[in-house]
């Protein structure tokens, strides 16, 4: 298979060598630097463009073979201003795919449009950064645990361009000095881990001379086949980010045994290409970070934070060898004020697009921005083309659902970690809706409880149990009344006693008599009421159990009243007869004893009845 590809490339090269020159542009100098230190191939080309024709040229074409273009993840052209590698976004040019006529097939063209245009004889220096994914092929494709991972990279030693190139050179940076093989051409030099091709002079347009480099690369080939980032905005002050990764090691497949013993004893020799940890750079002030998968929390993670960033080191459940996969989710909260701003009455979220983990290639990235319920006029602006649509998500206490802006992009590399914005309108009062819903929910719950307690829900109003229940309630109410009356009697007794004490102090017999009279009349009234109640209880069947106690209570109370009256009248009599204190005491003593005993009994009975 490999040889056939070589052959293809060769034929293709020959075919395109005969194509006509496109325009009057000439590349006077091209310097290319290829960085192969990670799984992501970055080619930085410094191109000096010269207009030798007479017309003003407003675009420069960049050509890529289709095989390469399909791996192209990111392409940007900048204006090179002097020596410093200043990559100010403002000076970048617009790049887009074009399909010019009369061009050889199996080439993809990108056009860099120059806003000012390039006049006759003018020279412009461009920096073109192209980033490729999946461009390194593991070879051999399957290795055992003990073997190292070798990869193959194919390029052209000559800069493939529709324009003639006067001077060009290529330098390739490798991760290690260990190189299995590389294509030798004229002017090939090797310095440690760097290979240099060129300089080559006066190369015609569309020249292509394939080179292949076979070298050791034990860098983690972590590829997220799918990454779903969900950014949920809560106007109560936080942004919740959840990222679901589906990760695979895309390097050489592992074959044969996996020996834990070997891996534990010599992790770098046995399992050199496996990766065991990843580092995610989260925004500063990230909190409540979690790391879990479908079957639970993964305990192997570390978190550091300072004012500029938060670093989360995560370790998958097992080391990821070639071809092994894993899925996991990380989630964290961020303070809202760092990411949400207001502009012309609209709010907008400013958030980074790509994934926070270093050097991970993402095949499909889906970013979902969940806006609060009730957001309107939603629009998103992303610095590069993405697929866009809207969904609805139901979360806690949602009625109509939260609008979700979904952005999808394939082939994402760290260069895509740029900020994007989602604009929307939102009324702050809508924030209060959910708490109010909760409050009203509880309110209605309690109200319905109250209603239930007070409503009579029995089906049959004439059933025996229902009637007996009603009767029982009546009996209870009557007993309550009896208690009330007796409780009213007791203060009157106290008053009588008090009047006796007053008598002993002041000697005012008349007042004392009056007190007795009034107490007597009151007590009589009360006893009348009592009689009625007791009569009712006697008539009721339900009260039969409790009736003796009530009757006893009433009887004792009556006795107590009588005793008190007798005592009172005795004392008053004594005072009228001016008897001595000792004599009074002697005469009253027996009554007094009886009264205290009765009082105790009444108390006991009251308590007993109370407990029913």
């Amino acid at each position, binding site marked *: 298979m490999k040889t056939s590809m070589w052959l293809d490339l060769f034929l293709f090269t020959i075919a395109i060598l005969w194509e006509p020159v496109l325009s009057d542009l000439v590349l006077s100098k091209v310097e290319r630097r290829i960085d192969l230190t990670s799984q992501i191939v970055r080619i930085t080309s410094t191109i000096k463009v010269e207009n030798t024709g007479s017309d003003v040229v407003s675009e420069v074409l960049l050509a890529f073979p289709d095989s390469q273009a399909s791996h192209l993840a990111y392409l940007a052209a900048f204006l090179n201003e002097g020596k410093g590698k200043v990559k100010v976004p403002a000076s970048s040019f617009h790049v887009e795919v074009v399909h010019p006529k009369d061009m050889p097939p199996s080439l993809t063209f990108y056009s860099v449009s120059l806003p000012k245009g390039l006049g006759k004889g003018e020279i412009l220096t461009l920096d073109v950064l192209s980033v490729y994914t999946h461009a390194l092929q593991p070879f051999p494709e399957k290795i055992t645990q003990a073997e190292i991972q070798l990869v193959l990279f194919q390029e052209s030693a000559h800069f493939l361009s529709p324009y003639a190139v006067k001077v060009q050179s290529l330098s390739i940076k490798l991760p290690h000095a260990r190189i299995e093989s590389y294509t030798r051409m004229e002017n090939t030099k090797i310095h440690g881990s760097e290979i240099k091709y060129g300089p080559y002079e006066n190369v015609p347009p569309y020249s292509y001379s394939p080179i292949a480099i076979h070298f050791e690369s034990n860098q983690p080939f972590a590829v997220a086949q799918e990454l779903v980032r969900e950014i949920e905005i809560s106007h109560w002050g936080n942004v919740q980010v959840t990222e679901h990764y589906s990760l695979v090691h895309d390097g050489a497949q592992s074959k044969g045994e996996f020996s834990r013993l070997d891996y534990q004893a010599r992790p770098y020799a046995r399992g050199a290409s496996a990766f065991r940890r990843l580092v995610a750079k989260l925004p500063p002030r990230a909190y409540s970070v979690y790391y879990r998968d479908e*079957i639970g929390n993964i305990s192997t993670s570390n978190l550091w934070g300072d004012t500029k960033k938060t670093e989360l080191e995560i370790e998958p*459940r097992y080391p990821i060898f070639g071809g092994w996969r894993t899925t996991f989710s990380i989630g964290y909260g961020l303070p809202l004020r760092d990411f949400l701003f207001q502009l012309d009455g609209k709010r907008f979220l400013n958030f980074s697009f790509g994934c926070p983990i270093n050097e991970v290639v993402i095949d499909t990235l889906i970013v979902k921005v969940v806006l609060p319920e009730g957001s309107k006029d939603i629009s998103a602006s992303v610095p590069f083309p993405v697929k866009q649509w809207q969904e609805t998500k139901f979360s806690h206490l949602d009625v109509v659902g939260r609008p979700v802006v979904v952005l999808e992009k394939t082939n994402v590399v760290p260069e895509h970690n740029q900020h994007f914005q989602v604009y929307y309108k939102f009324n702050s009062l809508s924030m209060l809706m959910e708490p109010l819903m909760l409050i009203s929910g509880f309110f209605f719950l309690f109200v319905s409880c109250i209603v239930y307690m007070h409503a009579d829900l029995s089906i049959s109003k004439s059933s025996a149990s229902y009637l007996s229940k009603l009767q029982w309630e009546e009996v209870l109410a009557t007993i309550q009344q009896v208690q009330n009356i007796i409780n009213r009697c007791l203060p009157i007794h106290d008053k009588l006693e008090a009047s006796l004490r007053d008598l002993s102090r002041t000697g005012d017999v008349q007042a004392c008599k*009056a007190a007795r009279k009034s107490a007597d009349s009151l007590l009589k009234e009360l006893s009348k009421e009592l009689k009625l109640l007791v009569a009712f209880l006697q008539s009721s069947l339900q009260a039969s159990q409790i009736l003796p106690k009530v009757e006893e209570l009433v009887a004792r109370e009556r006795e107590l009243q009588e005793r008190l009256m007798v005592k009172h009248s005795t004392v008053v009599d004594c005072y009228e007869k001016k008897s001595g204190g000792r004599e009074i005491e002697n005469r009253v003593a027996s009554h007094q004893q009886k009264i205290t005993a009765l009082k105790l009994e009444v108390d006991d009975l009251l308590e007993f009845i109370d407990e029913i």
Partner: protein
Amino acid sequence: MVGKVEPVNGNVKSGSNQSTPAATQAATLKSDLLNSLSLKSLKLKTKQQELLIRVSILCLVYVLAFMTRLFSVLRYESMIHEFDPYFNYRTTLFLTQKGFYEFWNWFDYESWYPLGRIVGGTLYPGLMVTAAIIYWVLRFLRFAVHIREVCVLTAPFFASNTTLVAYFFGKEIWDSGAGLVAAALIAICPGYISRSVAGSYDNEGVAIFALLLTFYLFVKAVNTGSLAWALASAFGYFYMVSAWGGYVFIINLIPLYVLVLLITGRYSMRLYVAYNCMYVVGMLLAMQIRFVGFQHVQSGEHMAAMGVFFLMQVFYFLDWVKHLLSDTKLFQAFLRITVTCAVGVGAIALGVGTASGYISPWTGRFYSLLDPTYAKDHIPIIASVSEHQPTAWSSFMFDFHILLFLFPAGLYFCFKRLTDATIFIVMYGLTSMYFAGVMVRLILVATPAVCLISAIAVSATIKNLTLLVRAKNKAVSSGSSRGTSSAKGSSKGLIDHSQPFQRNGAIVLLLGAFYLLSKYATHCTWVTSEAYSSPSIVLSARGAHGNRIIFDDYREAYFWLRQNTPPDAKVMSWWDYGYQITAMGNRTVIVDNNTWNNTHIATVGRAMSSYEDEAFEIMRSLDVDYVLVVFGGVTGYSSDDINKFLWMVRIGGGVFPVIKEPDYLVNGEYRVDKGAAPKMLNCLMYKLSYYRFGELTTEYGKPPGYDRARGVEIGNKDIKLEYLEEAFTTSNWIVRIYKVKPPNNRW
């Protein structure tokens, strides 16, 4: 005259009258008045106070029961525990995703390969349906919860509900005080907590609630004779049947109870209504559960209930005849004939039913409950489970603590006040105590009874003591008030001096009771946090510096299986891990914890205990792609496959006589070191467990290949595998997975 009227009208008027002379005095009076008024309006009646206290205590107990079960979530995480819960979780997930009918008709290809399992017809769906309903209700109320959270918290939620049932049950059999104590005791009783911590998503979690509810409703029905309560208890029984196989306990205990009432002459119309309604409706409802089906009329375990049902009819009939016949002699004769006939007909029916095979005989599990030694001799698969072992005294003490001593005291109180309800609780307590002694896991069934009976003891004792203390208080206070009302102190009551140490004694006893109860509370909390809150999937240990080390090897291996093996791979392991592999690894297993096919398990046991080439043939015939073993030699984790190995040999040997237990033993001793039996050293399980272990130094100062779980140096360090290769070993070697190599090419 005015002066005379004044006191009659009461305090209010006098206050307003007096307000004219001195403004300051009036102000103070008014404020007093306001105070008294506001206090009066706020002051609750004793009834209301009692209700308030009762309700707030119940609420606190409810919350406490829930909270104390959350230790596992705090210590570890919100996850499903142990083995069976993983199956329940998997089925619940299926139910919520695919709906009830799909669930009901679910044929699971992922377990018992190649036989499969009719899941819908071989499980008790109560737990899953309950969790799914809770989940759907929460979803409907717009709470976006995950089904896992619902499953994790189902058991604590039902434990809280059980406390409420315990309160009402206690109230029904004794009084509301006993009910409150019972609720508090059961809320924290370790015997119950062990099966209902957050994450232990097992049938028992809801079944204990259902069990107690059924009993409570039945007792209520017997006490009231109301059809409504009996019907409610039938529905409680239905819920219990749908939730747990332990319903057999109900369907045997209730007839037994009815029989005891009949014998003791407590037959009443209430009992007749309660039992008949409960039995007939409950039986019909229970038949709706596919797993139970017609067992109520066909299985020997359910025949007692049916017999008692017919006996009730005979009793009723006799009662009626007695009512008609005035002649006692005639009635005696009639009685004799009827009873003989009834018993004879019953015996014949039973005999014919059993002989013709219509009534299935008692199952082995039932026998093993009645006879603790039965399982050991006849069903090794039951005996191999640690929770089926007879209970040790220490675990009684561990799970019941002071309740163990309060239980007999409670029985004393129950016998002192024998009613229909107390007879029931006594019978429940005694029978379940017996079963708890037979099997460790049945402590769970005994726990509610023990809590209720102990609550009666506690409540009755404390009530008596407080009565003593309060009586004294009153006497003293009334004595003092008497002292002020009249200067004479001579007439102090006789009671004061009757028993001088009674009050102090009561106080001391009260303090002692509170001390015991607080000890109980601390014991329960300690047990819950230390012993019962471990998920057993994640192991934790203390490191050398006191730090906590987590061994998450099980999930590491299961997740590896899930991600890095073909989706249709078949995994062979001992049956303990079957549910976990299907739930977490999402791969097909040969056998799992639903041990319905003994032969299949024996085949796996045979493969594990054969030589590698023989085992390879067995594994080929079962289409096995991966073999999973659990090995604790590196970490010192003792419940690994080598320690379970003898059971594999026994179960395998039970079906395939090729496997003989003595081949693996040396002089009746089980060893893995140099002195081990040659067959042991070369069987598949040994090889898979110790493959390349001989090169590993596990402990400082010990030779390589030192097995920390068994404390010996292994006997076979040079293990070569011919038909299998190591596919994955977890970081602490607890789980090792081997891939079965494809057969060699023939040419």
